[in-house]
């Protein structure tokens, strides 16, 4: 256990993994005949050097914080929730139903209600796989994958047959009332006289996402429930011995996870499109997996990883605009990050551990001068 100092475990190993992932991404760019350095230049230029770029970067970041937290909470209980995509889709349905229910007078009323609706729908969508895992032992990975597809069909059916306004051709709900429109950064920062581009959809949901990070931290590391979830994740038998009910923890962890994924919809459905469309989630549920792995399932890590993926996502869009590199490069980078920080974690960890062990042994062989100096001080 004590082979590595904590900083190496928390920072060094993930950092090396990410560097390897980026190195291979660079190779991929080289292989398709483009210049990786130039590509990074275009990505930074397009996402971090203007308020327009930052606006989109932070908009994507908001999505990924929610889905990253969702996967993290399930990971803490040692469950792999691949269903973030479906839960976010159904969360969108919840947000849309709330927004369309009444002519909202002001966003301050609409936002909490919609947040509740999205989280509730997302949690309910996660509840069935959770129950099947907890009560009948059905593997949660398979059931959540299946529920992604079922969510797609359900949403498709509802949009085409129920939610589509009469006379409209495209499968989408009606536009939300103006009172359900969330203030964007240009409006918020405008109050303080700071100019910000009004084009990007980044909105007040960003702050809700940061609040969610804090609340998840509070829950996981400062409450009894969070302790139980983590204990259950470390050792199921140990947790049972300590009087923790596996059924209860499985259900609660998955409900929180689904709720967080569903809550994402306030950003993409309410904040951006202002109506429910097909494919509104755009794979954010899956990126949450990479974000959670990279962020080591800790809210601070998730925030940083979400920011990085927000940058990659916006930078990737710029790349496809200005160069011959398709947007799918981001999917490749995402895959490599998942591969190296997740599946091939031991490949990096084992040599690092060995290096630290070797150093420890060397130090033990020739005693350091420290103990001799101490009495003199």
């Amino acid at each position, binding site marked *: 256990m004590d082979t590595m100092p904590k900083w190496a475990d928390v920072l060094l190993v993930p950092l090396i993994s990410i560097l390897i992932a980026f190195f291979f991404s660079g190779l991929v760019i080289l292989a398709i005949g483009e210049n990786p350095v130039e590509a990074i230049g275009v990505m930074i230029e397009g996402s971090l050097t203007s308020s327009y770029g930052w606006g989109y970067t932070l908009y994507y970041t908001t999505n990924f914080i929610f889905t990253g937290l969702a996967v993290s909470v399930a990971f803490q209980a040692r469950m792999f929730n*691949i269903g973030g995509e479906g839960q976010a889709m159904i969360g969108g349905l919840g947000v849309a139903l709330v927004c369309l229910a009444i002519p909202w007078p002001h966003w301050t009323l609409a936002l909490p209600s919609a947040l509740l609706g999205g989280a509730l729908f997302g949690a309910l969508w996660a509840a069935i796989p959770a129950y099947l895992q907890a009560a009948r032992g059905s593997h949660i*990975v398979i059931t959540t994958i*299946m529920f992604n597809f079922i969510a797609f069909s359900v949403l498709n059916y509802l949009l085409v047959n129920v939610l589509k306004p009469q006379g409209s051709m495209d499968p989408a709900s009606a536009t939300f009332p103006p009172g359900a429109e969330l203030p964007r950064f240009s409006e918020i920062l405008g109050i303080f006289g700071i100019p910000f581009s009004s084009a990007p959809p980044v909105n007040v949901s960003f702050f809700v996402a940061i609040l969610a990070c804090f609340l998840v931290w509070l829950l996981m590391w400062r409450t009894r429930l969070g302790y139980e979830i983590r204990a259950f994740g470390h050792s199921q038998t140990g947790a049972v011995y300590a009087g923790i009910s596996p059924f209860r923890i499985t259900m609660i962890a998955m409900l929180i996870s689904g709720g967080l994924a569903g809550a994402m919809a306030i950003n993409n459905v309410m904040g951006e499109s202002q109506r429910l469309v097909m494919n509104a989630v755009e794979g954010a549920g899956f990126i949450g997996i990479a974000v959670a792995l990279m962020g080591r399932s800790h809210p601070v890590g998730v925030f940083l990883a979400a920011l990085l993926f927000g940058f990659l996502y916006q930078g990737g869009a710029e790349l496809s605009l200005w160069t011959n590199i398709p947007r*799918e490069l*981001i*999917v490749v980078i995402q895959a490599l990050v998942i*591969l190296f920080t997740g599946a091939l974690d*031991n490949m990096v960890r084992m040599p690092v551990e060995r290096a630290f062990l070797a150093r420890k042994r060397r130090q033990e062989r020739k005693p350091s001068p420290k103990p001799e100096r101490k009495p003199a001080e």
Partner: protein
Amino acid sequence: MDVLIPVLDTTIRLAIPLLFACLAGLFSERAGIFDIGLEGKMLAAAFFSAAFAAITGSVWLGLLAGIAASVALSAIHGIASITFRGNQLISGVAINFLAAGLTVLIAQDWFQQGGRTPSLVGGARFESIELPFAEALSGVPIFGQIYADLISGHTILVYVGFLCVPLTWWVLFRTRFGLRLRAVGENPAAVDTAGISVYALRYAAVGICGILCGLAGAYLATGLQAGFVKDMSSGRGYIALAALIFAKWRPWYALYATMLFGFLQALSLRPDVVQTILQFRVPVQFLDALPYVLTVIILAGFVGKAIPPKAGGAHYVKER
């Protein structure tokens, strides 16, 4: 009959990629390696088979390239989940994304057609094979019709796919290799005690899985359709996974399960047929979702219990 035969014909065409992928998953999971990367391997194989067929003009070289691509991804999965004892599910997810991204990236670089390959013509595609006497027997009612329109007239890969079912059964249940492979998925420690390499067996299983996924992908791009388009596997790898659970990890049941799911896919292409049979309109989306719903019901254990291989998903550490 005139309605049924075309629907069943489509069923076979749509079920074959599922069957290949399902048998692929069967080998892997029977050896204790979960594989949710079937989808990605299929997609990679679809692209490389179509790309090489388009470039060389030979569908057989395409098939080889497709299998090679799929096996390469299998090797990554093997290294991650066998050698480095990583999480097999996470590795599978990574492989799916890797394939989804790389295929489009490379397709754009090679062909500049927005992530697709040129349409395959002539020898770059698998042609359908007329079985002997199909023409002569087509006049005979029912049996002749079934022979001529349903059994005859598929590409070679369809017949290979059907042959793979008894072959898989024979390998798994009638050979020493199969016995050991199944044992390694149930109790690797026992296999190790008998002096047989757990790692080698698992790598072999993952390799076979790669080859079969390669066939699935090659059939998609060069048999079922003429060329590769972005994301063309469209969830078939996951349906195959569902079929595998439905089949409870047994080869013959895998055939029935994939045929059932293929039939559902064929029906969702012909909502008019469903309507005339059931006398009311069934939403297409319901038929699309049915395989997944059925799998969840099976997984929940309401219709017989699906018990996976015992050591599935667990990596094996040799005692030191």
